[in-house]
Structures are given as C-alpha cells and as structure tokens.
C-alpha cells in the first residue's frame, strides 16, 4: 500500500464486490468525498474495512483524485458438518459455533476456525480427554463458497491412576479424600466417572483439603505443592499433594467490634457458640459471620459484612478472633420483579411474597418468598437476586427468576376390549390452570362396566390473605369394580365444598361440607355375604350421607416435588352427620418427615393411621326366606324351572318357621373402609397388589375378595438419594414399607403387619408425575397377592 502524499478525495470507487453491497461498505468507511486522505486516515479506513470481517484483502489506490478500494470478499460457508463428537452434543456445539460466527450462510473467517479448534481442545482437555485430535478441513466451492468439516477424535479420557497426599500425619488419606470428586479407579467409576481427571474437580477437592485442616484447628496448615502429571501416552494421570500440617490451635477470646446496629451483647450471644478453649475451626468462623450477617440482613442491612480478624499467639497456640461488623446502609426494596413466568400470572407469584415493595429489606422474608415459590410445584428452579438501583445506594430491586415446568398431568386414552367394549378416558389435573394458580382437575371415563365424571376446582387464594375455597362434584357408575376390591357395583355421586384457612406460615385448617348418595348393588352369590348381610340389615340399598370434615395440617417442606428438609402432618375427622342413612365417623392422621443426613442422602419417615366407626344405632333384622324349589313343568323328567318359595313371614321373628338368621349392621360401613397394599391406596405397602391386604372373604368357588378394614396402620422408611440423578425432575430412593388394615381395633395384631422393601423412581415427566417401584415382600402370609413391579401415574407423591 503505497504511502502516498495526502490528497482530497473527489470520488470513491470500490472494485471486487460480489455479495456485499457498495452501500454497506460506505457505512463502515470513515472517509467521504471531499475529505483529504493522508496516510493516517488511509490506515484507519483499512482497519475499519477489515473489522467488518467481510474481506480477506483490502487495497487502497489512487487514480488522480479518485480513491479506488479493491477488496477480495471472504467466502461464505455453504455447509458446516461436525463429526466424531460424543461428549459435547452437536446441538450445543453448533449453537456455540454460531455465536463465534461459524454458521451456514455466514462469511468464513479462517481466524474463527482456528479459535474454534482451540476452544474445542480446551473444552475436551477440561473433561480430561487429553489425547483429543480436532482436525478442521475447508473445501473450496465455486461462487466463492466453502464447505467446513470439523472431525473430532475424542480418544479416551485420562484416568487417575495415583492420588498421593504427603505430609498428612494426623489424618489417614482415606478419611481426607472421602468427600472428594477425583478418585483412583474403583468399582463404581464406570458410572460415577470419578476417576476421570478434570481441573475443576481437582481444584474443588484441593479447597476441601484446605477446609478439612482449617476446620480442625490447623491454622498454619500450608499446601506446599500440588503436582499433576500425565503419562507419556496421555492415558493416565498422577496427582500428588505435599503439605505441612503444623500445630492444632484453640480459640482464645472472641470480641465484636464496629457498628453492630443491634446492642453489642446481642451480637456476642450470636457468636457465643465459639468458646475460648475449643479447637479453632474456619467453618465455625464462617458460621458465626453468616449468623451475624443474616441477623443484620433481616432488618434492612442487605450489604452487611463481617470480617473475623484473627490474632494468633504462636507459643500459646491460640487464636483470638475479633468480629468486625460493617453494616453498610439500611436498604429499602424498591420493586419486586419476576422473570421467566411466561405461563404463570404475576399475582400468582406476588401473593407468595413476604417481602413488600417500598419497605425495608428483610433477607428472611425474601428467602421465605423463595421457599413458598418452590412449594407451589409450578417451577423447576427459583433463583433470587437483589440488584442495586442505579443512583440510590440504599435501594435494591429484588428479582426472582423462575423456570416453569409441568405442574399437573394429562392422560387421554381410547381403547376397545371384549371385557369392557369401547372405553374412552380423559384425565386432566393441572395445579396451575392457565397460569392462574387455580387447581383444576377433571376426569371423564366411559366403558361398558364403568362411567365416571369428576370435576374439582380449588382457588388457593379466594381471599388475598390466602383463604382457599373449592368444590368438587362427581358421578360414578361402577359395575364389578376393577380395583380387585370386593365384587359389588355402585352408582354414587357427591357434591362437596371445602375451605382452607391458614393459621400461620405452615399450619392451616380445612373445613369440608358435602352431600353424597351411594347406591350399592350386591349379588347374592358373588358379593361377600358380610356385605350382603350389611345391606339387608340396613334395609336399603342407597345410602344418603351429609358429610362434614375438619382437618388441621402443617407443612414445612422446602420444596413440593423434591423436599429435602421439613415435614407434613395432617389430622382430619370426617363425620356423617345425624340424619344420614348410616351415622359414622372416620379419623385419619398422616405424618412424613424428611431428615437431610448428608448432601447425598435424605431419610424420609412416614406414618399413616386411620380409624372409623359408627356412632349411630346398630341395625338388626331377622331374615325369613325359603329357597326356590326346582320343578319339572313340562314333565320331561328334568327339573328345569325354579319356582320361588313363599315370601318370608313378616314381621320375621326368630321363631318364624322360615327364619334363617339375624343380620346386624354396625361399625364403619364397608364402602368407607380403608384399604392397604400397593402403590396408590392410602395404606401404601408396595410389593402387594393394590387394596388387597387385610380381611377378605372367599366365595364358594374360592375367589378371594378383599374387604378392607375400619382401622389402618401403615408407614415407611425411605432413603432418598438426591444426588444420584443431577436433574431436579427425577429422584431415586430405597424404601421399607409396612402396614395393614384391620376390622376394628380389637382385631389389631402386630404380626399381621405386612412389610416389603425395594427401590422406587419418581420422575416428573412432561405428561405428569410418574412413580415406579420394584419391591420384594419381606413379611407375607400365604394368600397375599404379590405384585413386584408397580407404577402410578399422576397420583399424589
């Protein structure tokens, strides 16, 4: 490029343009007609044109007054193919490449290709794949186009062969490295991949090593050298860490200084748990500083900072700590903003907030808001950040970013079978219907032996204060119920209204009023006789009931689907009010508590009790009946028609000639019995077929029918492993279930309790929550119906 003498530009001409329009070049060109062009301006023009990334080569010439710019355009990318990449998915890669400017139709800039190769190598090295080879290739096409192919040969990840801590006299290497993520190959490595080296994992482990010693009093602990080396053929990794432990130090006196806002004595009580004399621990220091900052941030000091200033006394080996408190300004929350709620309406989130706008900042209230959003079950993740407001150092905006997920389940099915003919079923239950926060569920099922129409609606915030109101109505016609419960068919319908009144952040009362009618068709031969007798004793088939229910509940779980801490408890009493056909009551109590034992293990203990009895009068009735006799009407020697016997004497007395027996009806009506066994009944004992545990009755040809019972005792101990799957929507657990139902509490006997153990998977599929369990019965009696693999779709957890 000739360093020509400056001249005024009378005109500008651009040669060599193909794809790029002249107008485009002019917008980026810092030179116009009439400017004087000197060497400096020319260099600036060159740089500007190169910066556009469109051109491979730019040359400026001068033809007396006219500035001639000859450019060579860079080729466009016709096709971009990626092959051989397993660890890094093609979609993420293409997206990443697009951001760097390597996508079909973009201009091809060799610099980008080199940057991409280097970036991919770095990403693979970070995953421990050191012998990766990435070879990009460019194929020239006509019309100034290129095809790009990037072939990746990943090679095997380098395995950690040797992990050696040197200088650890006081603690054995196994104890120190127990919580580490990098290990030498062990039998679990095929799954956990913990023998694959990665720099982040190792730096995390080194940090754990530091806090291991600093939490046990080794103030002078120093990590002298960490040596990472790789074998010549890049297949094996060797990690050694040399350290000097130093001596154990104890705490000396603990003081508090700086502007503590609260009276100093209060702050001193907060850090009281650090007593002079016990072993120094950085963890305790962190706990103390967090406790103080939390206390201050609860009353508006969002930017409070506490730095513990240690004063080490070498010969007495003690560490005095002075907590220096810097409260910063008292902060107000200007606005609360929600992000990511493309489906859920703003009031549904805002009504869960405990922090208000225009009021002083309270960290506890903001955390409570996050927990309450987690407990709605509408969101996979909830993140909260407070961002300072520009221009006001004492105001912040609190921003909740949520990631929505399926908050209900939908299943529809059309089928045909000889047994049930054409059957159609639609089940929709949605906890966040159309984003309004209302819970709506409806079910329509039609088949030969069953018709069912359900609809239920709950508005959790009927009043802004949180009083919930809802109703549900259903009509069901069952013919020989398929829930392997006793053989009778029912036509039942109900209308119920219920209200929930919050008593505190976690406690609430629920009140329900409803009326239902239940017509039961029992068939002499196949329905168990206790049921037939019961109906005969009551004297009518349809049972009208006015029902009232009062319940108290407490729920302190920290998340709806995957709780790790907290518990739920419910006590409820249900009464068939006087005037119902049968006057009975049902009490039920269930509790489940989560014990977070460690990052990777949460224990869940659950208990479920139920008892019901009638408080009204007992029905007794005598049955007089003469069986029909078989007569040969067309006297062909075969008795083929039955002639009904004479009607029973009325009133039937025990002394009447055709008296058969007296039947009584007392206790809880059989259609209100508790059931146990299986995955979906209220007495959950997985590994046994649904509803089949407890008292049963076998008909003459031996077909056993479960009756359920008026008393239920069931429980389970479950070990949940939140870390096994890294996605929040799946959870694996191992469980031990036990339970049974009894006919009244006097028949209760502990060794009748059934038990089973197994593993269960809970998966929040896009269609709804699905729980699958595989269980082996531990205590079973002969005649129990065992069903090892069970699953339950859309039901409660």
């Amino acid at each position, binding site marked *: 490029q000739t360093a020509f003498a400056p001249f005024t530009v009378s005109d500008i001409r651009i040669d060599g343009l193909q794809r790029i329009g002249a107008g485009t070049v002019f917008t980026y060109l810092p030179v116009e007609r009439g400017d004087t062009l000197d060497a400096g301006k020319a260099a600036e023009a060159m740089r500007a044109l190169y910066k556009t990334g469109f051109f491979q080569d730019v040359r400026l010439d001068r033809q007396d007054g006219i500035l001639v710019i000859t450019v060579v355009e860079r080729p466009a990318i016709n096709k971009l193919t990626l092959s051989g990449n397993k660890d890094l998915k093609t979609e993420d890669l293409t997206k990443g490449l697009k951001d760097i400017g390597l996508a079909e139709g973009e201009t091809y800039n060799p610099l980008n290709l080199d940057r991409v190769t280097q970036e991919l190598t770095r990403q693979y090295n970070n995953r421990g794949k050191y012998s990766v080879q990435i070879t990009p290739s460019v194929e020239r096409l006509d019309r100034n186009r290129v095809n790009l192919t990037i072939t990746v040969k990943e090679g095997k990840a380098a395995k950690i062969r040797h992990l050696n801590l040197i200088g650890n006299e006081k603690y054995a290497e196994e104890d120190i490295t127990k919580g580490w993520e990098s290990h030498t190959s062990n039998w679990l490595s095929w799954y956990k991949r913990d023998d694959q080296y990665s720099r982040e994992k190792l730096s995390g482990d080194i940090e754990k090593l530091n806090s291991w010693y600093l939490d046990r009093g080794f103030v002078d602990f120093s990590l002298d050298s960490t040596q990472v080396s790789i074998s010549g053929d890049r297949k094996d990794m060797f990690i050694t860490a040399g350290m000097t432990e130093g001596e154990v130090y104890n705490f000396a006196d603990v003081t508090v200084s700086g502007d503590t806002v609260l009276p100093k004595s209060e702050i001193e009580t907060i850090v009281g748990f650090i007593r002079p004399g016990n072993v120094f621990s950085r963890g305790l220091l962190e706990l103390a500083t967090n406790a103080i900052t939390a206390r201050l941030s609860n009353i508006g000091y969002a930017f409070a900072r506490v730095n513990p200033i240690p004063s080490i006394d070498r010969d007495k080996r003690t560490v005095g700590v002075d907590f220096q408190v810097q409260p910063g300004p008292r902060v107000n929350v200007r606005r609360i903003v929600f992000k990511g709620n493309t489906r859920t*309406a703003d009031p549904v989130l805002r009504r869960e907030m405990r922090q208000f706008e225009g009021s002083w900042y309270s960290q506890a209230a903001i955390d409570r808001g996050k927990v309450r959003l987690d407990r709605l079950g509408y969101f996979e993740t909830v993140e909260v950040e407070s961002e300072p407001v520009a221009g006001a150092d004492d105001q912040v905006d609190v921003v909740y970013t949520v990631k929505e997920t399926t908050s209900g389940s939908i299943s529809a099915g059309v089928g045909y079978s000889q047994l049930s003919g054409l059957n159609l079923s639609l089940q929709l239950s949605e906890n966040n219907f159309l984003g309004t926060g209302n819970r709506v569920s409806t079910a329509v099922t039609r088949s030969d032996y069953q018709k069912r129409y359900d609809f239920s609606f709950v508005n959790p915030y009927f009043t802004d204060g949180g009083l919930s109101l809802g109703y549900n109505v259903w009509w069901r016609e069952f013919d020989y119920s398929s829930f392997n419960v006793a053989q009778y068919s029912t036509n039942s319908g109900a209308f119920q209204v219920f209200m929930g009144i919050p008593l505190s952040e976690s406690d609430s009362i629920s009140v329900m009023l409803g009326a239902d009618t239940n017509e039961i068709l029992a068939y002499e031969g196949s329905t168990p006789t206790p049921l037939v007798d019961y109906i005969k004793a009551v004297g009518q088939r349809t049972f009208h009931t006015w029902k009232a229910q009062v319940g108290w509940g407490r729920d302190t779980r920290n998340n709806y689907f995957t709780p790790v801490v907290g518990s739920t408890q419910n006590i409820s009493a249900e009464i068939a009010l006087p005037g119902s056909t049968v006057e009975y009551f049902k009490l039920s109590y269930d509790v489940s508590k989560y014990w977070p034992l460690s990052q990777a293990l949460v224990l869940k203990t659950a208990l479920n009790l139920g008892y019901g009895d009638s408080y009204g009068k007992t029905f007794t009735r005598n049955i007089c009946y003469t069986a029909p006799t078989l007569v040969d009407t067309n006297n062909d020697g075969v008795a083929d028609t039955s002639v009904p016997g004479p009607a029973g004497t009325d009133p039937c007395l025990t002394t009447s000639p055709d008296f058969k027996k007296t039947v009584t009806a007392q206790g809880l009506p059989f259609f209100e019995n508790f059931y146990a066994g299986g995955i979906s009944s209220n007495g959950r004992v997985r590994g046994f077929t649904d509803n089949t545990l407890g008292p049963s009755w076998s008909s003459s040809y031996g077909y056993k029918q479960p009756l359920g019972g008026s008393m239920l005792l069931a429980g389970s101990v479950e070990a949940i492993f939140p870390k096994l799957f890294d996605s929040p929507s799946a959870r694996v657990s191992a469980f031990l279930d036990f339970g049974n139902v009894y006919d009244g509490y006097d028949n209760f006997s502990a060794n009748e309790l059934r038990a089973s153990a197994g593993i269960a998977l809970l998966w929040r599929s896009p269609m709804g929550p699905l729980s699958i369990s595989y269980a082996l019965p531990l205590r079973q009696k002969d005649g129990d119906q065992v069903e090892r693999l069970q699953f339950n779709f859309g039901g409660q957890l």
Partner: protein
Amino acid sequence: CASIKNKFKDKDKNEGLPVSELYDRAHGYMEKGRWSNAGEVFGRLIAQYPYGPYTEQALMEQAYAEYKAGKHEDAISSIDRFIRTYPTHRNIAYLYYLRGLSNMARNTVFMARAFNLDTSTRDLAAPLQAYTDFNTVATRYPNSRYTGDARQRMVFLRNEFARFELNTGLYYLRRGAWVSAADRATYLLETYPQSQYQNDAVALLGEAYTRMGNTALAADARRVLEQNDPQHPWLAGHWPKDPSVFKRLNPFTGESR
C-alpha cells in the same frame, strides 16, 4: 434413527438447483401457506447462492416465513443476520418492524386468546424488546410505511406495561400495603405518562393516601383527578371494585379485569 429420518426427507432435493427454481419453489410454499418448508428452502438457497439479487430477497422472505411458522427465535436471528450484512438496505425498516412483531408474539400463552388471558401479567421481557424494535422503526425511519402501525403498536404496548403496573398497585392496595401501592402508581405516572391508565393511577394514588391517612396528599390527588377525569368512579367512591366472587370461583373467566 438418523438414517430413518433421512429416508423420509430426502436431503438433497434442494441441492444443485438453479437459484431461480429454488426461489420459485420456496415462493410456491409461501402461497400455499406451508411456512416452515418455505423457510427451509430459502435457507438452502442462501447457503448455495450467497450473493446476487435473489439472496437479499430470500433472506427477507425467510425471516417472514419463519415468523409465520411461529419459529420466532429463528426469525429474529435471520433478521439480525440480514441487518448485519445489509445495514443500508432500502427496506431495512420492514426488518425492524418484523422483528418487533416476532418479539410481540414470542411467548404468548398457547390459548391466550381463547381464555382472554391478560398477557400483561406475564414475563414482559419479549414485549419490552418488541417496544424497542418498533421504536427503532419510528425514530430511525420516520417516513417508512410501517411507522404508522409501529407507533400504534408502541402505544398498545405502553398501555400493557401501564396496566401491569396498575394491576400490581391494586393488588397491593387490597393487601393493605399502601406504600407499595402508592409507589407503583407513582412509577406508572413517571414512566408511562399519558398512558390509558393515567387517571386510574391518580385514583389509586389518592386511595392509597386516603387509607394511609395522609389527607393533604389525598386531597391534592382528588383535585388533580377532578380536573382530568371528573367522571372517574373513584370520585364517587365506588372504585376500585374487588373481583366478583363468581369470577374467583370459575376457572374459565380468564382474569383481564
């Protein structure tokens, strides 16, 4: 199963065709309303013929096809690519306008219209972006033929943002958080002046002050409202009305009150 996928859609039926034929095929799809096919064929055209008169037109129509096919993110990235390559193209205004349309339609709830859901109470990130796009059209290309519609959409969007502020203020008023309600009203008046809910905001402010017992400010707010909107229901004392019980118990009424 990648191989199965290929069998149905034979990959290279669009390769190696002359540019005009490709263009006509894509245009045919557009007439028949098969937007995603059209978008795809345009894409192949641009890749095979990276320059020439057809390419500019194809890029624009690809963006439009993707918008109509509901693939809003793809449409926006096609538009961005066009703007980067042809910043001084004569109908660049159309591109910014199309970008505003895509952003406006980006994450409306599936059955929003069927249940007249109030889109202003959902995440406003996309509508805000749409507002800036329309603003670019209105300010940078004042005499383009899209400016009129862009301005109207800006007014509509501003009213949406204002209604969101008002509804949130009303919510806080009902909850008894009067300072929050007053702040929301003030924010509405300062950020969206002359919006459709200007007077409602003043009424909300007055109501909040009254409940707060700040009679002086309440009286001034009432005076301002009397000048601007004498028939406002708040003056007669029956505003704001709480949502009816029927509305709160019936899931299908939507909630644009």
